[in-house]
């Protein structure tokens, strides 16, 4: 296990390096340090001197990759790439271009993001599995056919529609919940409920369809036939055996997204005014704040890799024949 983790860690480094290099190149082609300076200094009365000073102040006055002013190791380290990108391996994200500390901001924003993403994940899993089971359970009735059609219809509706319609009816017309906003502490539930509800409903279509096919595949297997021959009731077969065995592919599949929950949801957060990491990313894109985008890309990449490892571990745990090699 330890050896596995160490090897995985070693493999991760070139990948993260590649991720950094790619985003770094992309963004610096887009935004020269001059652009960033102008952007942050505002529209009125900006002098070239102020631009130069802003660049010095924020460390953007260095060469990108290679500093020919030095001959020693500094020629590589005294560059924007090293200072801004490689520092992140030490989890040193520095300050955003607007001067705020990024690590601090991520810390405060992770909470609201998780407050939405975790309930959506758990509730979504529960609802989708129950619906899928129900459809399998009633597979000889019209309910299954209706369910499949409904699932396809639900997944053909744009996610934006769910949000717009949800806000319109639940918050505006019926006054059930606040239309947007967030609060800390126990009062948060009123703000979390609507986005969670909408996200779960929006995910029912594809989720149910996917889990249904897993359960159906499971129900066609030999052991189910044996169990049936033994005279077990249909509901017992379904809830005991099929559910248990079907959960393995479902859970191992879900593990990969687990770390990414941390990143929050772009759309939900910005529509509902949730101060999480998703809206942080959107704001950063719109403000073209490269420092934040860079940090979020890095974190996203790390979480993605963690998700991959967790999947491996989950497989080996669920199926002892698979070794961590």
């Amino acid at each position, binding site marked *: 296990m330890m050896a596995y983790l160490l090897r995985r860690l070693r493999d991760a480094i070139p*990948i993260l390096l590649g991720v950094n290099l790619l985003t770094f190149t*992309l963004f610096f082609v887009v935004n020269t340090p001059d652009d960033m300076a102008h952007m942050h200094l505002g529209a009125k009365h900006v002098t070239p001197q102020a631009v130069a000073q802003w660049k010095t102040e924020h460390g953007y006055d260095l060469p990108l990759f290679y500093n020919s002013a030095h001959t020693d190791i500094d020629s590589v380290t005294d560059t924007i790439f090293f200072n801004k990108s490689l520092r992140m391996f030490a989890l040193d994200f520095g300050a955003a271009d607007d001067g705020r500390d990024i690590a601090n901001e991520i810390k405060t924003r992770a909470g609201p993001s998780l407050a939405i993403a975790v309930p959506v994940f758990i509730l979504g899993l529960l609802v989708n599995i129950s619906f899928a089971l129900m459809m399998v359970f009633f597979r000889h009735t019209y309910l299954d056919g209706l369910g499949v059609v409904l699932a*396809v219809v639900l997944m*053909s509706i*744009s996610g934006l529609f769910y949000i717009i319609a949800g806000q319109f009816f639940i918050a505006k017309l019926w006054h059930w919940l606040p239309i947007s906003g967030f609060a800390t502490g126990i009062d948060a539930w009123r703000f979390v409920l609507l986005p969670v509800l909408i996200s779960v409903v929006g995910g029912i279509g594809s989720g149910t369809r996917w889990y249904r096919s897993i359960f*159906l*595949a499971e129900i066609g297997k030999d052991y189910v036939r044996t169990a049936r021959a033994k005279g077990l009731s249909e509901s017992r077969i379904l809830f005991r055996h099929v559910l248990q065995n079907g959960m393995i592919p479902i859970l191992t599949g879900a593990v990969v997204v687990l770390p990414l929950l941390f990143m929050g949801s772009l759309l939900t957060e910005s529509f509902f005014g949730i101060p999480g990491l998703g809206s942080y*990313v959107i704001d950063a*894109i719109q403000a073209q704040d490269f420092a934040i985008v860079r940090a979020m890309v890095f974190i*996203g990449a790390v979480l993605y890799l963690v998700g991959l490892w967790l999947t491996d571990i989950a497989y080996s745990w669920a199926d002892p024949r698979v070794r961590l090699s």
Partner: protein
Amino acid sequence: MMPVVLWTDALIYLLVISMALMLYFQPADGQLREALRRLYQNKMGIITGWILLMFTLLALLDSLHYRPVLPDSPTPQYSIEVMSALDAVLQPLRAHNEKTYSAPLAQHLYVKENVTLANGLVVRDYPRLNIAQTPQPEVSVLLLRGTSWGMAAILLIWLVMRLFHVRHTMGAGSWVLIIVLLGTMLLISLAGHYHILGTDKVGQDVLYSTLKSIRTGLLIGTLTTLIMLPFAVLMGISAGYFGGWLDDVIQYIYTTLNAIPSVLLIAAAVLMMQVYIETHPALFDSSAARTDFRLLFLCIIIGVTNWTGLCRLLRGETLKLRELDYVQAARAFAVSDMRIMLRHILPNLFHLILISVVMDFSGLVLAEAVLSYVGVGVDPAMQSWGNMINAARLEMAREPVVWWPLVAAFSFMFTLVLAANLFADSVRDAFDPKGHA
């Protein structure tokens, strides 16, 4: 007029032609023919297939671009505005502009204005629409008229078929055609007198913009996967077939790409493209060229974030196929690697590729709307459902609510995506009858 071939036009026609060739030259007993036969027996497949075909025809019509010639000029001069064949067909919709919002089938504007009455008095009232300056025939009359036209057309077709002794049994496809024919006639009969889906903020016909958006949606849905398809196939197969360092490199590439949150990658790339457009203004002299380039680039960059899934899938399958007896035998006879991959491996992966292309389609159409919302979608000047939905965010806050642009965009998008989803299911069933319960 001067024909204009935009990049996406060229690609979409290339795609259509290559698909036609593929269907034409397929082996008579091949897997593809067998699957098509099964697809043709599937009622859902037929219906959705026809619907998709209708959308595709509109998109293809909208992909024939030209610059109209300007009148009275010594040397031929062309307008800078790029039109499409669809624009020409929809000229009545284009021509009737209002000042601002009007509801579907309305005769008056949706907002009050100062109207000078005949006696010189100025009152606040809803002014008549430009299209309805004189009272227009009742909607019911027009509906009736459209229906009778439609009936007549159907009867005509039936008579012609009888005349030439064409044998035909009524299937699901025929019903779809009949409905489409009737619908078109109704639209034609209404369109001259009303704005069927109302008008938008600057008074353009919403039906027109919705129809124009079809091309954008379809292109994003198809080009995105197809542009990156050669890479995905080549890399996936070679990684699985050769293994070793090549496998490592390819795995490294797709893991790295996958690790970057795709919205961020798309945003960065779209911004980069804008820099390119700004620094090369000579290449993009018309609005059409600019918006088209942005669309193409968007397709490419979404493709880059999307191809890794397919690549990984193909790699896995190739790993399995490589171990099969006949592949091993071919290797033993020193058949060249290239030949093995083309002859033995690729055909066995074909259904996977096709299924993945069809399955991705609907997700991509939906993604366009979300990207427009984030501000990194298609050009704001381009007609797309995403842009329409984006604009509707303000319209929904109005009171009384301006609902029709949103409803129009959502329902067209919904129809396309639903049809695509159901069609994808049918295709999967047809190609992989056992794999799916």
